[in-house]
């Protein structure tokens, strides 16, 4: 069954033109005038309206995801090829004899031609085998899984803190422009943008760990030590990681909210007698969320990237520190995999954000 069958009132041309007409379609639901109009379509209609639109989006994004990943893998491999540094010489130091180096290179498979090594690598990944770490001498998948236990909760916690701070602050600031809250928020976001996360981390350690003794100065007891101690170890780094991003997000939320507040349909809603709070809640915020989501998606790569710095300051055994260490040791197998995983995460998250747009955007929703 196609969309046309379900919603007879819309022509095919209109459906095709949705992208260029989003703004016009952005407010038709408002015309209903009732406070309940943000659920514009009956449930049945929405279910049916989704597949075609979404499927196309998902498919095209999936294809570009796979192609991007392939390119990324090739780029990573080539960059590491030209990066100076012989893993065998690094492992064995400056006193190793030539025959010892050769023995280790052979053991590590470094004597194979580059093309073969690339194919082995990609082939292995396709079969779920990430290879064996040169320095740790254990499967990279195990290493990465161990580290994910730190980096993933850390990043998620940081995202949670960041959004929990930024959304209310940004909306509150925009609700009363130039008011005291707005000014305070502006100062906070100015500071947050200017101050790097690792420096905040150092201050936190000095204050909360060395002075007050409330938190450990760094390190991670592992989840086996219990959720409490583990979260305690992650909280300070997560806040340090979140603050700069929260500052950015607060600014974006504030300006996005201000923009929507100034839009015609909001004035219309107010003119129709919807009170200020409801307008904000029902009409302004959902619309302002769209640019906010875009930024949040972009920020995810910063959360993972920032984790490298923060994990080093707080001495957390996460993926970021593994990457840093592997780079120093030229543990090529580990670096390749981690960079691919990081890029993969960012690409997948962007994919999800793209899909998320369609879900969040009331205009896109109401259009089918």
């Amino acid at each position: 069954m196609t969309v046309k069958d379900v919603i007879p009132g819309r022509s095919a041309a209109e459906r095709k033109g949705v992208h260029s007409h989003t703004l016009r379609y952005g407010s038709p639901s408002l015309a209903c005038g009732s406070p309940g109009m943000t659920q514009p379509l009956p449930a049945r209609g929405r279910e049916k309206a989704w597949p075609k639109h979404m499927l196309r989006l998902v498919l095209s994004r999936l294809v570009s995801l796979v192609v991007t990943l392939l390119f990324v893998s090739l780029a990573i491999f080539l960059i590491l090829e030209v990066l100076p540094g012989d893993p065998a010489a690094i492992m064995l130091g400056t006193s190793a004899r030539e025959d010892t180096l050769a023995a280790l290179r052979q053991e590590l498979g470094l004597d194979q031609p580059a093309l073969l090594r690339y194919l082995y690598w990609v082939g292995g990944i396709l079969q779920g085998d990430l290879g064996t770490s040169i320095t740790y001498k254990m499967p990279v998948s195990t290493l990465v899984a161990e580290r994910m236990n730190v980096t993933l909760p850390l990043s998620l916690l940081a995202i949670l803190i960041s959004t929990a701070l930024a959304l209310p602050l940004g909306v509150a600031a925009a609700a009363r422009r130039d008011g005291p809250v707005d000014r305070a928020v502006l100062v906070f976001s100015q500071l947050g943008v200017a101050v790097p996360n690792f420096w905040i981390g150092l201050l936190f350690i000095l204050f909360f760990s060395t002075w007050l003794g409330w938190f450990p100065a760094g390190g991670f007891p592992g989840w086996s030590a219990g959720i409490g101690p583990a979260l305690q170890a992650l909280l300070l780094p997560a806040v340090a990681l979140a603050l700069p991003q929260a500052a950015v997000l607060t600014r974006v939320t504030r300006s996005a909210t201000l923009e929507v507040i100034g839009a015609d349909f909001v004035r219309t809603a107010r003119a129709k007698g919807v009170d200020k709070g409801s307008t904000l809640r029902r009409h302004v915020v959902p619309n302002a969320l769209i640019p906010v989501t875009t930024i949040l998606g972009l920020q995810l790569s910063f959360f993972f990237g920032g984790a490298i710095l923060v994990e080093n300051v707080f001495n957390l055994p996460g993926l970021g520190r593994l990457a840093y260490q592997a780079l120093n040791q030229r543990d090529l197998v580990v670096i390749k995999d981690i960079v691919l995983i990081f890029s993969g995460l960012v690409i997948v998250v962007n994919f999800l954000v793209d899909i998320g747009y369609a879900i969040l955007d009331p205009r896109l929703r109401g259009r089918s």
Partner: protein
Amino acid sequence: MTKRLLTAALLLSVSVIPAFAAKTSLVVGMPIEPPGLDPTVAAPVAIREVTLANLYEGLVRIDRTGKVQPLLAKSWEVSPDGLTYTFRLQEGVKFHDGTTFDSADVKFAFDRARDPKSTNAQKQIFAPIESIETPDPQTVVIKLKNPSGNFLTYLGWGDAVIVAPETAATNASNPVGTGPFKFKTWTRGDRVELTKNPDYWQKDKVKLENVTFRFISDAQAQVAALRAGDVDAFPNLGAPELFAEFQKDNRFKAVAGNTEGETVAGMNNTKKPFDDVRVRRALMHAIDRKTLIEGAYSGFGTPIGSFFSPNHPAYVDMTGAVPYDPAKAKALLKEAGYGDGLSITIKAPQMAYASRSAELIAAMLSEVGVELKIIPTEFPAKWIEEVFKNKDYDVTIVSHTEPLDIDIFARDNYYFNYKNDKFKQLIADAAKTTDEKARFAKYAEAQKILAEDVPALFLFQLPKLGVWNAKLQGLWENSPIPVNDVTEVSWTE
């Protein structure tokens, strides 16, 4: 009600703590995590600092003063020609997996290290071995092709620890040795935990029940961990500028000792203008080591005038051979034809001591009309490639941390490109001299040659800035070999 409960809880918790029982656990902080826990297959110092003497033992051990002491070998005899070593082994020694240690394990360990497929980083120490015989389980006879004066010392290194055939292949991730502590867990990226070996052959010496090595790379984080009590000891703190604060704090003991790291600015001896000894000496004359140490390492570190560790009994202070004398430096440069100035480069790695030293050296050389351009490089990977392998450099700076490594100036094709037949012969002779006094005399002469020939600018011995809880005793002040031997460490109360 809550108040009463709280009081009760408080009383309870107080009564549970036994009065003044000495602590039996120790947390040692280290800047770098070891890649694997097998010192016989890789070079990194961090591997030795966790495993040597704690998990694994050799036939002999190097004590805190650098002397060779019996360990798994309780005694030995060396034949007058220096070619036959007969070791008598300790009895009742067991590996952590319960198997018995005997002469077959010694033979296995050394045969494995000198095998063509071996990846032992110091394979050359086994090169003189002709044969290894095991007449009985308690005796090992090692025959050498040629005398090796430092053979016993080498056997105390991490590269020569005794491993068992059953477990050698998996030692990197699950180490099994004969040492006072057994491997418990390795939380990669964070810590290695060891626990007391209940069957240790000299267990009366061991006071600690648990030892944890924690890896904290950031210098600020190291200081924070010490202050917060998360770490009891940092045998080698990475923040020299904060070390003085610990010296003033009576909760800590802060000891500045020596490592085996000779910090030198190596020169490309076959490249112009470094092929001229006058230029090399001029550059050395231009450097004020005291000021350099002040700036590069907050004043900690012993100035050196040659390439030998002050920890070693054969050390001779050669800092007076080519002393700080800018006027003389200028005169020598003029004599060599560089009176109008000279422009050279230094490849400086990212380590704080190296990059800071490079800047200070550049400032000092500019005083005598030499322009030194600093080119940053990355250690180890890029440095090994560019400087060590390709010898694409004028001057570089790095600390050589291996013990007893003066022979690097005698090696063919080493990055200094230094060729001195007299020196080479002397080092070869010293290596073959079994008599300690005669060997040390040769090393003294070798130090003198280097000091005067200046194949590298000899700067300072990298200090070992140890900070630990004042109640701890038994930690080493110097490190004559890379090791954190905690066998005899204990808490005073």
